[in-house]
C-alpha cells in the first residue's frame, strides 16, 4: 500500500470515525450538562423566535453587513467570513470528486457544479480566509482574541483548500500522486482535528442559535 492508498483508505476511515465519535461525544457532553427550566411566563412564541433567528442567521445573513447599521461592525470580517464559508460549503458538497467521496460514504449522490465554478469558489474561500487571518493580525481586537488554537484552526482548514487547489491546477510540477496524497492527508487531519477544536462550532452553532431564538422569542423581542 502506498501513501495515497493509506490516506484515502484506512487513515480516512479512522479519521471519519474520530470525527463522528468525537462530535457525538461533544454534543452529548454539552446537552447532558442539563438545562434549567424557565418558569417565567412567556410574552411571545419561542418557536417563532427560533424560526426567525434561523431565517436571519442562515442564508448567510450572519455574514452580511450591517445587521446593526450604524455600528462600525467590520464589514470586511462579515464579507470575508461569508466568502470563506460559502466557498467552503460549495467545494465540499458540490464538486464532483467530493460528491463521489460522499457517495462512497453515504451511498447516494447528487448533481454537481462544473469544475470552473468550483475553482472560483475555492479561490473565493481562500481569499476570504486570508482576509480573516489578516484581520486577526492587524486589528487589536483580533490580536487579543487569537491564540494558538485559532492559528492551528486556520492552518488545518486552509491546507486542504490549498492542496486541493494545487492538485486541480497541477501546480509546482509535483507528481499527481504525491499532491493527491498530501491533499488526503490534510483532509484526514482536518477531520481528526475538528472534534478537538473550535471548528466544532458548526455543531454548537445550532445549539446556540436555537437557544437565542427561543430566549428572545419568549421575551417577546425580535431575536
Amino acid at each position, binding site marked *: 500500500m502506498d501513501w495515497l492508498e493509506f490516506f484515502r483508505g484506512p487513515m480516512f476511515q479512522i479519521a471519519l470515525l474520530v470525527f463522528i465519535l468525537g462530535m457525538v461525544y*461533544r454534543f452529548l457532553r454539552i446537552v447532558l450538562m*442539563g438545562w434549567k427550566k424557565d*418558569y417565567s411566563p412567556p410574552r411571545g412564541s419561542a418557536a417563532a423566535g427560533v424560526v426567525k433567528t434561523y431565517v436571519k*442567521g442562515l442564508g448567510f445573513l450572519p455574514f452580511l453587513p450591517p445587521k446593526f447599521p450604524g455600528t462600525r461592525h467590520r464589514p470586511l470580517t*462579515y464579507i470575508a467570513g461569508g466568502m470563506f464559508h460559502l466557498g467552503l460549503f460549495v467545494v465540499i458538497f458540490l464538486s464532483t470528486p467530493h460528491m463521489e467521496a460522499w457517495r462512497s460514504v453515504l451511498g447516494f449522490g447528487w448533481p454537481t457544479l462544473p469544475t470552473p465554478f468550483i475553482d472560483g469558489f475555492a479561490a473565493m474561500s481562500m481569499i476570504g480566509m486570508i482576509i480573516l487571518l489578516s484581520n486577526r493580525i492587524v486589528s487589536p*481586537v483580533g490580536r487579543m*482574541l487569537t491564540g494558538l488554537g485559532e492559528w492551528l484552526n486556520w492552518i488545518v482548514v486552509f491546507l486542504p483548500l490549498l492542496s486541493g487547489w494545487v492538485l486541480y491546477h497541477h501546480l509546482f510540477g509535483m507528481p499527481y500522486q504525491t499532491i493527491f496524497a498530501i491533499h488526503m492527508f490534510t483532509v484526514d487531519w482536518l477531520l481528526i482535528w475538528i472534534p478537538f477544536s473550535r471548528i466544532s462550532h458548526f455543531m454548537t452553532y445550532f445549539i446556540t442559535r436555537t437557544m*437565542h431564538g427561543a430566549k428572545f422569542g419568549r421575551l417577546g*423581542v425580535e431575536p
Partner: protein
Amino acid sequence: MSATEIIDQQALNFFVKNVGAEVASQLEACTRCGLCADACHFYISTGNPEYTPIWKVELLRRAYEQNYTILGKLKTAIGLDKRIDTEDIAHWAVLDFQACTVCKRCSFVCPMGIDIAGLIGKVRAGLTAAHATPPKLMAMTKNQLEKGSPDGSDEAKWAAWFKWGEEQLGKSLPMDVKGADSLVVFTMLELNSFRNNLVHIARIMNAAGEKWTLSLRARDAFNMGTVIGDGAVQKKLAERIVKVAHELGVKRIIVTECGHGYVTLRQAAHNLFGETLPFDVVHITELMGDFVRQGRLKLRKGYFDNEHRITYHDACKIQRIGGNFDSPREILNLIAPSSFVEMNLNREQSFCCGGGGGVRAIPEAYDLRMEAFSLKAAQMREVDATDVVMSCSNCRLQFKEGFEHFRIQGEVKGLVEMVAEAMIE
C-alpha cells in the same frame, strides 16, 4: 493555601459549579471573530480592545476549559494557560463591573447567537463570590438588605414621601388595599430625584380608574442582588415584593421607572422561587400604553408639539429585553406627533446610556461612562434632537449628568411626567 488562594479557589469553584449546557454550548460556540466588539458602547467610544464583550467572559472560559476540556487541561499542564489568580480577578472585576452595563446589545450582534451579556452576568456572580465586587455596590447591597433601599432610605423616609404625595394630590393614597388589581412599586431613584413621579403616577392610575395600591412593605423595586449577581440576595429582595403581592392578591405588579427591577420581577423571580407566580409584572410604559389603547386615558393631541425636537431613548432592560417598544411610540405620536423624531439607532439597536448595570453608582467609572454617553449624545445630534424622553430613572440621571458634563442644552424628560401633563383628567 493562603487566604487569597482560598478566595481564588472560591471564584473558580463558583464558575465551575455554575456551568450547565447553556453556558457550555455558548462558550464552545464562540469563534473569537471579534464582531461583538462593535456592539459595545464602551469599546466603540474608547477603542480599548479589552472592552470587547466576549473578552469580559474570559475568566469563565478559562475556568471552563481548564476543568471540562481535554485540551484545556493539557494547556494548563504545559503552561500555555495559567490558573485564575488574584490579579486576574481584580482585573476582570474592573472590566465586568465598570465597563459593562449588561445592556445585551452584544447578544443581538454575535453571529453565533451567543448571549454574551448573560455570560457576563455569570462572571459578575463569580466575582461577587470571590469578594471582588466594587465596594460601593457591596455597601449598597448591605444597605438594601438592612434598611430597604440601596441608598439607606428606610421606611420612615418612604412614608414621609408618600405623605408628601398625599398633600400634593389633596387626597389619600391607597395603601395595602386587599383585592386591588395593581400593586405599584417605585424605586429609591424616584424617591430621591424624581419625587413628582409619585404624584404623576397616582393621577394616571386614578384617571384610568385603575384599582391600585401601594405598600410600604413592598416599596423599592431596586434589586442589588441582580446587580452584583448574588442569587440569595436577589431572592430575599424580590421576596419582599412577591410576598405582599401574594398577600394582597393583586393581579399584577407595576414597576415604575426601573429597568433591572422590572426584569428581575418579570423573569428572574419566577425562577428564583421555582414556580410561575400568579401575577403579571408590567412596566409603567406598557400600562400607560394599554390605558391609552383601551380609551381609559385621554391625552391632548399635539400637546408637546412646539419648536423643540423630542427623541426617545430606548432603555436596555425595558425595551431591548423587555420588548416594550411600541407603547412609548404610540404615546409620543399622540402628544408630540410633529416634534417626535426617532434616533437612527432605535428599538433593539439603541445604544445604552452608559449608566446601567450598576455602573452609574461606581465612582471610579465616571470618566468611562461619560465616554460611553458621548455616543448617545452623538445619536441625538444626528437627528437634531433638543430634548430626550425615556422611562427609566437611572437612564434619566445618566442623561442629566451627561448633558452637564458635555454642556449640552436640552431637556431630559420622563415619559410618565409627559403623560401626566398631557392627560385630560
